[in-house]
């Protein structure tokens, strides 16, 4: 009598619909279908797939940071500004102040992390909504970049151009750029951190229920602040990667990029309410967005605004999908 056995009382179909990996699988399927269709229509060559990473590496890095924040149920609107600022700061340090590239990069990463941590403190200790707190970050960092210089500073440092042009061969004529490799490494580290470290599990716990996490004795404050610091770090890293891609700093770089990152995270299946989602989903989200870009430009006749329109449609679909899954989820409790 004292043994209580319980199995999750759900039908197989219900179980599938409720599986947290479902949105990622949907995104993956979408990506494959789009790729197959695009490949058929425009006869993609072998470099198209790696190019999706090469051309969107900065967005992958930024989306990884955004994933951490969104998993806790927060949001980071400062990503684009931090990316722009990081590029400007690097250019300023290297070109104007003649600081060695490595040192300058470390400074940039530190500043980005610190900025994120400060926003995290604002959010946690002063109970400012993440939307507002990071909105201040958005304005602040954009303003700061314009204070550094009103014009773009091109970086003619040989190391930078060497790095930017270095091709990592993948066999045949196919290659990855350094930036793409950095992006993949970031994703890998994020996966390990989120799924195999205590901090990672705390991120999910805070996103699942902050109140519960607190009552379970978890360091909620540290977790939340760290998450924004991680996002700041990723944004700064994305800024560096973007410099490799573009080889200059421009105060207006990365405008609106936070929205692309957030869109990628959502399309990757992470719930905006927090608690469920995967970094790999975000990677797929970026690739899907990249693929839309590729297809539209290969089509040739469509204006580039169609990229935005398709992104919007996809976002809508994925948010509706989340609603369906979310409704299933709340029906049982």
């Amino acid at each position, binding site marked *: *009598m*004292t*043994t*209580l*056995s*319980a*199995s*999750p*009382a*759900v039908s197989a179909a219900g179980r599938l619909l*409720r599986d*947290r990996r479902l949105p990622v699988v949907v995104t993956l399927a979408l990506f494959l279908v789009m790729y197959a269709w695009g490949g058929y229509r425009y006869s993609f060559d072998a470099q198209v797939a790696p190019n999706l990473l090469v051309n969107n590496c900065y967005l992958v890095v930024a989306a990884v940071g955004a994933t951490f924040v969104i998993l806790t149920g927060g949001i980071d609107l400062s990503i684009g500004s931090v990316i722009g600022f990081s590029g400007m700061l690097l250019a300023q340090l290297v070109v104007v102040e003649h600081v060695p590239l490595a040192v300058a990069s470390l400074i940039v990463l530190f500043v980005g992390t610190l900025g994120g941590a400060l926003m995290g403190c604002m959010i946690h200790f002063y109970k400012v909504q993440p939307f507002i707190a990071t909105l201040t970050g958005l304005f602040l960092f954009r303003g700061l970049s314009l204070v550094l210089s009103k014009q773009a500073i091109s970086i003619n440092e040989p190391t930078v151009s060497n790095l930017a042009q270095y091709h990592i061969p993948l066999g045949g004529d196919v290659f990855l750029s350094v930036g793409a490799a950095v992006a993949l490494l970031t994703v890998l580290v994020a996966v*390990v951190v989120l*799924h*195999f*470290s*205590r901090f990672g*599990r*705390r991120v*999910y*716990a805070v*996103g*699942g*229920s902050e*109140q*519960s*996490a*607190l*009552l*379970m*004795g*978890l*360091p909620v404050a540290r977790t939340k602040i760290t998450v924004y610091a991680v996002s700041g770090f990723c944004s700064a890293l994305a800024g560096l990667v973007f410099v490799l891609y573009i080889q200059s700093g421009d105060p207006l770089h990365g405008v609106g990029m936070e929205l692309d990152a957030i869109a990628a995270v959502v399309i990757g299946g992470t719930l905006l309410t927090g*608690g*469920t989602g995967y970094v790999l989903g975000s990677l797929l989200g970026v690739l899907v967005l990249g693929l839309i870009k590729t297809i539209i430009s290969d089509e040739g006749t469509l204006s580039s605004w169609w990229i935005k329109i398709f992104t919007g449609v996809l976002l809508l679909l994925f948010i509706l999908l989340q609603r369906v899954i979310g409704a299933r*989820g709340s029906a*049982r*409790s």
Partner: protein
Amino acid sequence: MAETQPVLRMTGISKEFTAVRALSEVDFRLYPGEIHALLGENGAGKSTLIKVLTGVYDLDAGAVELNGEQVRITSPHHAQQLGISTVYQEVNLCPNLTVAENIFLGREQTAGGLIKWRSTRTAARRLVAKFGLDLDVSAPLGEYPLAIQQLVAIVRAVEGSSARVLILDEPTSSLDRDEVQVLFSVMRRLKEEGVAIVFVSHFLDQIYEICDRMTILRNGRLVGEHLVSELDRVGLVRAMIGKELGGLEELAEHDRPPIGDPVLRAEGLGRKGGIAPFDLDLRSGEVVGLAGLLGSGRTELARLLFGADTADSGRVEMPGGPVALRGPHVAIGRGIAFCSENRRAEGLIPELTVRENIILAMQAARGWTRRLPREKVDELVARYIRVLDIRPGDPEAKAGALSGGNQQKVLLARWLITEPKLLILDEPTRGIDVGAKAEIQKLVAGLAAEGLSVLYISAELEEVLRLSHTIGVLRDRTLVARLDNGPDVTEERIMETIASGGHA
């Protein structure tokens, strides 16, 4: 057992929230290997005491000793480190994480900073089995019913921090009978291992089944600490309500006006988590009183009848056929009026004038597009101000400026103006002075005599006895008895009914 040192001793605990004294000088002690019930009505201070003990609230005065050493508990995390673990009424786990993760969150076994999932899951499986549960520990917690989640919370609380003190804050409120038995067997096992358990429950049967000792709080003060074997249920209920039976005034004589036709009949009406299915007849000219401890389901019952909550079982019949009470608008349309217990938050709108407050329900019943003509409004308002003797008699006075009793009358007027057939009054006299109280009681009696059906809810047994023709007794969210009021029905008898659950 009494010889051993208490594992926990709290003395002179006081806690104040902006102008409200939640606890004043409460003492509490807890021995190892005992199950100690913490009792009191809602708002007596149980939760506050627990939150002080678990570091959620900082205490204003008093001392906490753990194993003879003075401690100052600063956070839930700190409390856990000290070996004090809590399972709250609401499951405070993360439904998005797996069972295993929830048990070990924050204490995962790691190697080189990486979590060892395999051994974590194995450990979780072993633990869960030890507690007599058979679960898939790698399934998300949210996929299990609440009862299982509750038990997982206990597994976490006990095992993770090798708890010496385990606090169970109403863990049984969402469990069914079998699940409660599983919980109890777990509690007994822990007790044998020397864990001290604080058990909070509204269910008196459970207290008498499982507990060794109890501490009773009332209005933030300590009423007493007793061995469970030394205090019977009547004594316990009395201690919780705080009335000495000797000092009661004589009951007023009941004139029994002829009771008329049924106004509303509920059959098997109930709502999961709110109130167990009940049958109730309300007839015109009749006052039905509801008695029971706070939290026994009185308000929940009333809300069902008003459609403020929707029932998930049973049916309601009114003259002219069955009614689906899908919402207050349906109830209002059928002539049901409801004065909420929380008149400031849910009823009266203090910023509006007396006139506006009074016509609110009537205007709502007509629909906002059909505005009442001003002369009609003035005439009606003037009449009800006169009839109910609302003071000041100025229809343009701000409702918030009136005294409690007059605010209550404004609310009454609001509903009477719609000429209801059934009037539900939830604690209409709470927080108003004695004179106004008597006036309201007189009004209610008068209204019933004129043929209105009244459902009267009050924490004061005396009031219920004085007014009601029939008394419904509630306990543990169940309507346990219906008593026809008469000379043989006394407060003592109602308390006994509450204590025994209607089986006496």
